[in-house]
């Protein structure tokens, strides 16, 4: 669903420095429109970001750091890192496999497959969690079997990883498919004809060609994996120190009116968002350079 947004690598062409006269708006129009746009962004985007850090440091740096002494906070950070460390590589491998099959071969049902890959973007996060409860929950399809074998998925770490994998499912594939489509398969054909085997072709020809798109997809995928709230909220069970990811820990602290700690943990996530945006811009810039 966010395909139009996700596959925006090619968006940022440099503006033409000289505008023809017919496209030139009077200075007062330019100034007022630019001001209005910047005010809107400042109000809706910058203000919330600033609020996170202001609230986090409201009682000074000591109170801020205290939030990270809490073993539950540390456990939530570890769980978030673990979840991303499983979900992101899984979707990375999937993204490459899906893009390879879709862009290098012809088969029937290709466009249906491409649409189905996008499906998780169209599903509400809450529903993304719910469907796993229906499969693995106590009353779910596999519930009694799992209980008989003493395997916990829902209200445990595997459920959190699964729900996160679901919501971040399309990110890498969505970047790679249009990119590899535009590159075609000629270079791979050449490599095979010259005697390379499949893996050599992939590692030495395809991968260098797609590395920026791949990195771009991984950055977006990782940001969503670490920040997901709705889907993991449904499957986590909110057991402190065990099944709380960072966003869930923020919620618990906030609901306990422990605002400084809530915003302190939130500030780490906000920092992650800022790093994501910086990396994303760098990759776009590198990509534009290597593409031209």
């Amino acid at each position: 669903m966010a395909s139009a947004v996700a596959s925006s690598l090619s968006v940022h062409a440099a503006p033409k420095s000289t505008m023809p006269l017919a496209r030139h708006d009077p200075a007062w129009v330019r100034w007022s429109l630019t001001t209005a746009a910047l005010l809107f962004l400042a109000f809706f985007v910058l203000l919330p970001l600033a609020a996170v850090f202001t609230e986090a440091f409201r009682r000074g740096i000591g109170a801020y750091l205290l939030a990270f002494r809490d073993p539950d906070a540390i456990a939530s950070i570890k769980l978030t890192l673990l979840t991303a460390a499983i979900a992101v590589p899984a979707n990375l491998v999937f993204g490459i496999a899906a893009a390879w099959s879709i862009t290098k071969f012809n088969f029937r049902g290709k466009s249906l497959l491409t649409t189905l890959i996008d499906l998780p973007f169209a599903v509400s996060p809450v529903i993304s969690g719910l469907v796993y409860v229906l499969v693995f929950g106590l009353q779910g399809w596999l519930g009694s079997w799992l209980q008989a074998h003493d395997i916990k998925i829902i209200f445990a770490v595997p459920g959190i990883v699964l729900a996160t994998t679901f919501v971040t499912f399309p990110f890498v594939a969505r970047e790679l498919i249009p990119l590899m489509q535009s590159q075609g398969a000629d270079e791979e054909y050449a490599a095979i004809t010259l005697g390379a085997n499949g893996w050599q072709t992939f590692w030495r020809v395809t991968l260098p060609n797609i590395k920026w798109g791949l990195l771009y997809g991984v950055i977006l995928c990782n940001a969503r994996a670490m920040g997901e709230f709705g889907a993991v909220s449904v499957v986590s069970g909110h057991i402190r120190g065990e099944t709380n990811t960072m966003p869930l820990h923020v919620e618990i602290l906030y609901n306990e009116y422990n605002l400084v700690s809530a915003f302190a943990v939130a500030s780490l996530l906000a920092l992650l968002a800022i790093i994501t945006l910086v990396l994303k811009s760098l990759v776009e810039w590198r990509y534009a350079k290597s593409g031209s």
Partner: protein
Amino acid sequence: MSTARISRSVLPGFGLSLGFTLAYLGLIVLVPLSAAFLKTAGMSWHDFTDAVASPRVLASYRLSFGASLAAGLVNAFFGLLVAWVLVRYPFPGRRVVDALVDLPFALPTAVAGIALTAIYSKNGWVGQWLEPHGIKVAFTEIGVFVALTFIGLPFVVRTLQPVLEELEPEIEEASASLGANRWQTMSRVILPELLPALLTGFALAFARALGEYGSVVFISGNMPMRTEITPLLIITKLEQYDYRGATAIAVVLLIVSFVMLLLINLLQKWSRRFHRI
């Protein structure tokens, strides 16, 4: 299956990559999603309508659809403005501002939720100025609208930007040389050209807003019949162990999402055809 064409391909790995793709897609996405539909298929029609059309659920549809629509419209207007300024008017710091547009994607929804609540509550940066005038944002429908506007912001900008960049200067020059003033060129030439992308962006923002949960639950206050969004009701029913009720509402929301997805795909096809002419 056009096996003839496949066997002619020299490249290896078709079976492996497609097999893995289908297995992974099936296990992670399709089987779990089908569980929701199968669970609901087992309900009687009476139980189903009871679950999805009770007054409390109907109130949540009204809020979710209304606030998503309002947020989508505001984003369509300001998204057009932001995209236009970013593409047409170079100004210092343009790259930073451009990157900032994606913040609502990158910022975890729960963080956005508590930050917006802090800003718009009684003592917050904005709330303290609005409250004396009798305007309450946090814990009202307006708060839901504000959160959904934040979350949908990048969609319109990011769908419009490439279209604006590819807009050929000739059509504006032609329009100007035929005697149109700037406003006429804008409303009769540029806007119609942008319309498909604008609608696509609006539809994407609207669809995202319908399912949004994290950024809304903190600011909405979650009062039954007044400020409960539909995804929240799914969670509420789950917490009461009403799995059937939760799933029934989820299916309604899923069907709406799939219709939106179809509509967006059609819009994108239309916009592509539009631009080939």
